């Protein structure tokens, strides 16, 4: 472990992050709000702390090792969540305590979308914008952004990149150089955001809402500038645009790159993970719509509209709502949240366990059954006609086990803090899967639950975003032993 390098990179990243507090000042100026000074203060604090980290070690040139990568990424998310909470804490209108501000900030950066604020519609626009921007930065991973724009992260960039990218295959690069890869991902992200924002605007949102919601849609975040979320607009066009971009953002960005690079749409269909994702979405929508109709919740058209939108929103782990889905017949809310465990595709901005992992797990289960019938058969697991290395398969099982263990540990902790079972279960799923809304007490927002539960959920969101092991590795003695 090289503390110098860690401090240097952390310092630089913090200084970059401090810049993200400048756009809200612009927003405040446009809307004539009095929040500018507060954002300026937050900017100054973050910048100075960054400088303090960076200055003593600015001349260090040693190479970044794998371990340093873990430390930097984890610390960066921790530090960032803390500093990201600054403006929310400083704001008088939002009036948040430290843990509430932290919860909001973590929820933003991890693209969870759970909020503790009620009365969003009355908040200053600059603060609303800031929340959306947090999600956007967290969506692709601010480290990826940093790798894309910082030439100095050169070789070491891979170590960072690997710790932050979601999905089972972390070594695959789109281009030979990591910086190019990060660049490509960033550009795709940017293009999707622009397209989404434009579509929203054309569909009738105000420019402010269009930009804000494009941030939280493409990042699969789920923050909204209104308490009623997407339901506020009450427009089928906006709901379908939102659904479309959620589906697109839930697909592996590498796949987007290949489609764009080869100008071949059929890549989406030939990729087993994307195909599975689309199948699951279609089957899920079918079940939800039929159940909504036959249980008499809605009429036909409303069943399809609400059912389709919510299924996409929950399964991709975005968490936008247009209606109170927790009030639907009990099967449906649980069904939707269950699907959020599958989440989106690996290498996308979505959360959950990821379809890619589920696919390999499923294949392994089928293999065991097959093996009972043909005891002597050699049965490699294949994805896209290529054998999945057993190392990857092992890692996925371990991940799956750890995911479940942590899930139930969190549920127990929440139960211990006094929440009821439905709230505890759904809140844990909502945080660990980076989903957002839960059921029971947390169906609307997370303001009412106790402080301890919020701490637990903050950790849950970070564990989910960093895919557990990146965070857990720092808590093992081996990591710190020299």
């Amino acid at each position, binding site marked *: 472990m090289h503390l110098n390098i860690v401090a240097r990179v952390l310092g630089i990243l913090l200084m970059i992050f401090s810049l993200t507090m400048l756009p809200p000042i612009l927003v405040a100026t446009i809307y004539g709000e009095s929040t500018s000074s507060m954002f300026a203060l937050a900017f100054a604090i973050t910048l100075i702390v960054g400088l303090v980290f960076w200055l003593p070690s600015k001349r260090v040139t040693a190479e970044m090792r*794998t371990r340093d990568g873990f430390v930097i990424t984890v610390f960066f998310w921790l530090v960032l969540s803390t500093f990201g909470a600054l403006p929310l804490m400083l704001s008088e209108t939002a009036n948040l305590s430290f843990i509430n501000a932290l919860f909001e900030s973590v929820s933003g950066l991890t693209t969870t979308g759970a909020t503790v604020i009620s009365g969003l519609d009355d908040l200053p626009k600059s603060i609303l914008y800031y929340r959306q921007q947090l999600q956007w930065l967290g969506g692709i991973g601010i480290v990826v952004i940093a790798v894309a724009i910082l030439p100095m992260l*050169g*070789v070491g*960039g*891979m170590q960072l990149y690997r710790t932050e990218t979601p999905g089972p295959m972390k*070594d695959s*690069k789109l*281009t*030979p*150089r*990591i*910086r*190019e890869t990060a660049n490509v991902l960033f550009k795709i992200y940017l293009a999707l955001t622009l397209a989404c924002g434009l579509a929203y605007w054309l569909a009738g949102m105000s420019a402010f809402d269009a930009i804000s919601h494009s941030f939280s849609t493409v990042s699969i975040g789920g923050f909204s500038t209104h308490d009623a979320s997407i339901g506020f607009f009450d427009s089928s066009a906006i709901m379908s645009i939102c659904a479309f971009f959620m589906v697109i953002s839930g697909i592996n960005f590498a796949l987007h790159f290949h489609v764009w690079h080869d100008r071949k749409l059929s890549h989406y269909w030939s990729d087993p993970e994307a195909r599975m994702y689309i199948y699951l979405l279609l089957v899920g929508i079918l079940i939800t719509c039929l159940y909504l109709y036959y249980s008499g919740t809605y009429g036909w058209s409303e069943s399809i509209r609400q059912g389709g939108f919510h299924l996409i929103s929950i399964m991709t782990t975005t968490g936008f709502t247009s209606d109170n889905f927790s009030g639907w017949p009990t099967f449906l809310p649980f069904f939707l949240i269950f699907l959020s465990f599958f989440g989106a595709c690996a290498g996308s901005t979505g959360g959950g366990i990821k379809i890619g992992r589920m696919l390999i797990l499923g294949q392994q289960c089928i293999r065991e059954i097959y093996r009972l019938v043909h005891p002597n058969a050699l049965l490699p697991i294949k994805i896209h006609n290529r054998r999945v290395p057993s190392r990857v398969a092992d890692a996925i099982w371990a991940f799956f086990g750890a995911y479940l263990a942590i899930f139930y540990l969190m549920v127990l902790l929440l139960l211990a803090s006094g929440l009821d079972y439905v709230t505890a279960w759904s809140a844990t799923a909502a945080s660990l899967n980076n989903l957002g809304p839960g059921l029971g007490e947390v169906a609307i927002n997370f303001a009412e639950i106790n402080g301890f539960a919020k701490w637990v959920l903050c950790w849950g969101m970070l564990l989910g975003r960093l895919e557990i092991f990146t965070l857990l590795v720092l808590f093992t003695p081996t990591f710190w032993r020299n």
Partner: protein
Amino acid sequence: MKIVIVGAGQVGGTLAENLAREYNDITVVDINEQALRALQDRLDIRTVAGTGSHPNVLVNAGIEDADMLVAVTSSDEVNIIACQVAYSLFHTPTKIARIRSRNYTNPKYKAKLFNDNHMPVDVMITPEQVVTDYIQKLVEQPGALQVLDFADGSIQMVGLRAVKDSPLVGQQLRTLKDHMPNVDARVAAVFGKDGAIFPTGDTVIEDGDEVFFVAARNNIRKVMSELRRLEKPYRRLVIAGGGNIGFRLAKALENDYNIKIIEFSTERARHLSEKLDKTVVLNGSATDQDLLLDENIDKADVFLALTNDDEVNILASLLAKQLGARKVMTLISNPVYADLMQGGAIDIAISPQQATTSSLLAHVRQGDMVSVHSLRRGAAEALEIIVHGDEKSSKVVGRAIGDIKSPPGSTLAALVRNGEVIIAHHDTVIESGDHVIVFVVDKANTKAVEKLFAVGFTFF
């Protein structure tokens, strides 16, 4: 530049490392996934597992928009096919193949065989031959640490260690002219105890400094005598290891030197004895003290350890030195070992990858580079560049060397104009078509040098 390298062995790996450092887009292809993973962990490159001559694998590696294919697997045939596939299916502009077998490179067949109509290999490299040439020059120039040829050998750059009590040591560099009024030479770089010293007229060379100078080939020995006591030409060589390099070296030198070659394998030794006429072929171990003593190792001028095993080379060299060999030169491919042994009992550590990589780098660089030599384990570089353009489009043509703003840490050492060697002075004017020899102390500045000599559309 987008480059696909086929083969992740020693040559491929070192090449990938060098090229990736220079911000090229590198993809390495190999069948050995483990070797690929090791490279991927260390370098910012992409790797593809598969047979390097298969079109599908090459497509995965991005051959379609690659600027260059470098096929350096251990199999000549795979290398040739990879080039053929790249040419026929993907029109890759530059194709370089490693060809080991002399049967292919035999001048009788070479020109007919390797052309765009038959086997489209643009550049052939034979690492063993490159290393052999490198060693041969060291043997021919006693006292030199490194000898580099420029402009087909008419001009040479020699690196050596300055020894006290020689005429120039302790003196300012500008006195060089007074010492040798008839000889023109230029010191390109001095590496002292505290790293590189940029040579000016006031620079004083001290005992133990590593000095690189440039002179016409026939003046080299005179200049060397200024820096260290001139050594007698070598006569008796003992070579340990009769592999490709040992054999080629013996073959090249056996008419002028007294050579004994020690080979462990009986079969190979028999083969060597048939192919070599004057060389004494000994069957035995290079680390066998009795054998070395019997063969008068204490009378040997140079002991060359050239087996393909670093550890054996090092041990044999240490033993030979202890038993009284005057000079030992050792082939060490592991850079860590080379660092360990440098300046100890081993006089010259030869890095095979460095020699091979040098010969490839010239093709990767921008501008019209004739050759690139990697020095001091890749830290420094000596470049031979052909100057193009006119006074308008080039930053150097028509200007005196003193007026050219050369990048920091680079020295314009000499130039060759129509076969005539001109040692660079501050009033020498560069013309179009000159071969310029530039020494770059820190490789990081190579890009700036390339830019300086590039015929610039940057100007318009």
